[in-house]
Every structure is written in C-alpha cells, then in structure tokens.
C-alpha cells in the first residue's frame, strides 16, 4: 500500500460515511430526499453546482480533447457550458425555483398536461444520463488504473459501488455534502497543478508559446468542420438551463435569488478550473508526451511524472471527486426520473391502507423504489463501462445533445411564451430528438452538429402548435405569470 492508496481509500470511506449520516434525514420525506429540504445556502450550493457540472470530462476529458483536437476545440465546447449558466440564471432559475417542485418533468407535466409528456421526458433523461454516467466511469477506471496500479475493471467496480451506495441511501443531502468536498478538492488540485507548472515555465504565455511551437495543431482550428465546433458550443449552452441534475440544484436553493447567485458563482469557479487545464496543464502534457495513444491520459501522465506521491494521491482523489460529484447527481436525477416522474408522480397516495403494517409499507415504498432505481441505473452503466468509449467529452456531449434537443424549447417556451400549448409542447418534445437522431446517424454529418438542425426543428414544431392549436388553459397562464412575479 502506498500513500496514493491510503488517500484513495480514505476518500471512498468518507463518501460512504456521509451517505450513512445523511440517510436518517433523507428517508424522512420527499423534500429531504430529492431537494435536501430546500434549505441549501448560496456558498454550499455554488460549490455543489460546480462539482455537479465538473465531471471526469472537465478534468480528464477537457485535457484529452485539448491534446487531441487543440485548444480552440476545447474552448468551444466548454465555453458553451459556461454560457449556459447565465442563460439558466436569466431564463429558468427564478421561475423554476418559485414553481417549487422537484424535477424538470414536474414543470413540463404541469405546462403540457398529457400522459405522453410524463413518459417521454423521464425516458429521455434516463437514456442520455446513462450514457453520461458510462463516460464518467471510464474516467474513474483509467485514473485508478494509471495512478494506483489497479485493474480497470476492479477500479470501475469499486468506485461505482461506493457512489451508488451513498446516493441511494443519502439522497440529495449526501450528494450536496460530498459535492462540496469534491468541488473544493478539484479546484485545489487542478489550479494547484496549473500554478506549479506555470511557476516552472515562467508564465502561462511561455507555456502556450512553447507548446504551440512544438505542436502547431494545438493552436489551430483545422481538424473539424465549423458545424462540430458550433454544435458542441450550442449543445452545452442550451443544456445547462434544462439539464436535470443542475435544475434539481436550483430547487434546493432557499430562494430564487440564491439559486441565481449560486449558478453564477459556480460558473466563475468552473471557468477558472477549465482555463487552468486548457491553457497550462494540457499544453505542458502535449510537450512532455507527444505520442500518447489515449489522449484522455494526458493529465494523469503529467501528474505521475511532475509531482510527488502525496500530490498524485490527491490527483486520484480529485478525478474520483470529479467523476463522483457528477455521477452522483446524474444518478439521483435518473432515480428521480424513474421513481418520482414515472412511478410515483404524486408522491404518497391519498388513501393509505388501514392496517398499520400495510400503511407503513405503502408510505415507504416510493423511497425504496428510488433506492432501487439508483442501483439499477448505476449497475447498468457499470456493465456498459466495461467496454469504454474513446474521447469521453465528445461521447457524453452527443448524449446530452439528444436531451437538449427534446427539452430546451418546451421548457423555455413554457416559461416565456404565452401561446405555448399542449400541441406545441408535445410536437417540440418529439420533433427535436427525432431530428437529432436522424442527423446524428446520417453518414458524413459532422460530429455534434445534429443539434443545429434539431433545435430549429423543435422550435418550428412549437411555433406551429402554438399558432394552429387551441390556447392553453387560463389557470396555467395565470400560474406562469405568478412565477415571473418577483414581488408575488
């Protein structure tokens, strides 16, 4: 056992402990399990939001993408995510927090009341998030394999079992507190490593100058068509306002202003971390290791060769933290999509059985279904992750594109367009993903460009429904007006 092993094990044990401590409170009510009682303060929520977004892709993936496709390609993809935060803050955070439910499905089901909406939205979430989770698991597996010397499969299984355990028993409370710790650890390691490398090189400009001189492709935009750059930018810019694991964090805030503040502070921290990786660590790695077979290994190779064992141990914990902090939030969102959105949309049934034992089983069933859903989704993703994809950032971005193609237009129109009606909402929800899948699987289509067709298709369907369908009920319009009324 080395220092790295002890740090890694202590980290995993800490996560399980938080889950156990949170489980007593989380089992008490849906508010506690899904949105941590809606009492999370701005500072804690900011770190938790940053950690939820900053996945293995934001450490391993961003540097792998920079290594393989250059700095501009990475900036296009990750700037999109950062632009998504102000969009979320301005367009959805206030009204959705005032709506005061649990999930994005709750809002869409209210705005477009139809059984098909209640079915399509959770299915889209589960499918796209399972792919997202698989990519995160690859990051966890290769990190432990490279820095701890474990087998990929062993590391994958260990990390997966730990985060399924603490998410399933601790709910949003456990996710929040582990995310806060994990977010702080990520910032410390990535910014600390970048600062050390910059200090060695003299300045960030020196790293960029030397790296682009040694590998000119690092500073150019030649590798991919414009549609791919624009597509990756648009996917993330439009995903953040509707992506369920971020929206659930909006619901945990104490109030609408706290939700908006948290989103913007999280975005600042995320921007600094991404820039540290793209502008310092990845270019340095490109110079040190010009012939890596798997570009996603560049961060780990830099940590392995440039830093002492204790810092390597922290690097393992930081990547695990990045993976877990996103995967736990994704897993909770999947669990909510199955247990809350699909199976128990109304929570507890109004008329429980008379017999005491049956009544207890009846009222605790939704909680245990949520726990089981987390295990089913987590283990399925683990099975898929045994055959990992290449370039994880592009892999999960494509899956998120599918989700965005379906949910962005109905959500934004539902909040901001009075004529948005059931016909339009349903049409937009179907047309977006359908167009996305057709373009995505068309031979010759630039990677990630399908969103550039899917979003206009979804918007056109929404407009046609609103233009030719019947007006939405007055009660729904009145409720939406209330959500925009700051003084109300």
């Amino acid at each position, binding site marked *: 056992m080395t220092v790295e092993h002890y740090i890694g094990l202590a980290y995993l044990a800490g996560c399980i402990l938080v889950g156990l401590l949170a489980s007593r409170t989380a089992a008490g009510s849906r508010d506690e399990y899904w949105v941590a009682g809606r009492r999370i303060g701005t500072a804690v929520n900011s770190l938790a939001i940053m950690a939820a977004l900053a996945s293995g892709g934001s450490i391993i993936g961003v540097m792998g993408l920079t290594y393989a496709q250059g700095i501009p390609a990475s900036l296009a993809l990750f700037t999109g995510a*950062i632009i998504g935060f*102000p969009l979320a803050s301005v367009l959805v955070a206030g009204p959705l927090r005032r709506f005061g439910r649990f999930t994005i499905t709750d809002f869409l089901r209210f705005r477009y009341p139809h059984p098909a909406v209640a079915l399509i939205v959770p299915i889209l979430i589960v499918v796209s998030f399972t792919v997202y989770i698989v990519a995160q698991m690859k990051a966890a597996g290769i990190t432990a394999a490279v820095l701890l010397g474990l087998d990929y499969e062993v590391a994958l299984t260990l990390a997966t079992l730990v985060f399924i355990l603490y998410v399933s028993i601790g709910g949003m409370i456990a996710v929040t507190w582990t995310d806060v710790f994990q977010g702080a650890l990520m910032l410390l390691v990535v910014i600390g490593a970048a600062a050390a490398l910059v200090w060695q090189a003299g300045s960030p400009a020196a790293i960029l100058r030397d790296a682009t001189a040694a590998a000119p492709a690092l*500073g150019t935009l030649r590798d991919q068509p*414009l549609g791919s750059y*624009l597509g990756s930018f648009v996917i993330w810019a439009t995903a953040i306002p509707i992506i369920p694991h971020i929206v659930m964090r909006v619901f945990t805030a104490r109030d609408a*202003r706290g939700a908006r503040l948290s989103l913007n502070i999280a975005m600042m921290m995320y921007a600094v971390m991404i*820039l540290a990786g793209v502008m310092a660590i990845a270019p340095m790695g490109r110079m040190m290791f010009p012939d890596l077979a798997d570009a996603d290994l560049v961060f780990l190779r830099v940590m392995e060769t440039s830093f002492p064992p204790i810092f390597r141990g922290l690097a393992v914990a930081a990547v695990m933290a990045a993976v877990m902090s996103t995967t736990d939030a994704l897993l909770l969102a999947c669990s909510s999509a199955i247990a809350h959105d699909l199976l128990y949309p109304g929570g507890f049934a109004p008329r429980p059985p008379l017999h005491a034992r049956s009544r207890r089983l009846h009222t605790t069933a939704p909680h245990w279904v949520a726990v089981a859903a987390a295990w089913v989704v987590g283990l399925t993703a683990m099975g898929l992750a045994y055959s990992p994809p290449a370039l994880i950032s592009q892999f999960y971005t494509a899956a998120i594109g599918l989700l965005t193609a379906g949910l962005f237009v109905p959500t934004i129109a539902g909040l901001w367009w009075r004529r948005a009606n059931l016909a339009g909402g349903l049409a937009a929800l179907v047309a977006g993903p359908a167009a996305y899948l057709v373009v995505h699987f068309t031979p010759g289509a630039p990677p990630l460009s399908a969103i550039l067709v899917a979003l206009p298709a979804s918007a056109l369907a929404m407009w046609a429904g609103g233009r030719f369908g019947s007006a939405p009920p007055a009660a729904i319009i009145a409720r939406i007006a209330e959500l925009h009324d700051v003084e109300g």
Partner: protein
Amino acid sequence: MPRGDRWYLAGLVLVAVIAFLPASRATQVGPLPLFGWLMAGLMVAAPLVALVRLLTDRASRADGDARR
C-alpha cells in the same frame, strides 16, 4: 424579462456570433486564433458580468428577501 437581462443576453449572443465568424477563426493572435481568445474571454466575462448585475439589482434582492 428585465431590460438589463435582454441586453446581457444580446451581448453574449453577439460575442459568440463574432467568435464563430470566418474572420475570427482565420485571424491568428499569438499562439491562438482570435476565436480562441474570444471564447476564453467569454468564459471569464460572462459569469463576472452576470454576478455584478445580480449583486447590484434591487429587484432580485427584494425577491430573495420576500421568499425567506
């Protein structure tokens, strides 16, 4: 939507459009194309401006107070 929010969103879209123009992608400024610098600038400026606007906005402060 408040007017300030509209201007803010319009500004973000404008910078993004400029960044993706062919000229921005073709113009090399030091080690990176102008596109890269605009993306990096947007990464820092977008949250900073949003945060300043939110902290100085009286309506949003009232919203927070009313909901506590």
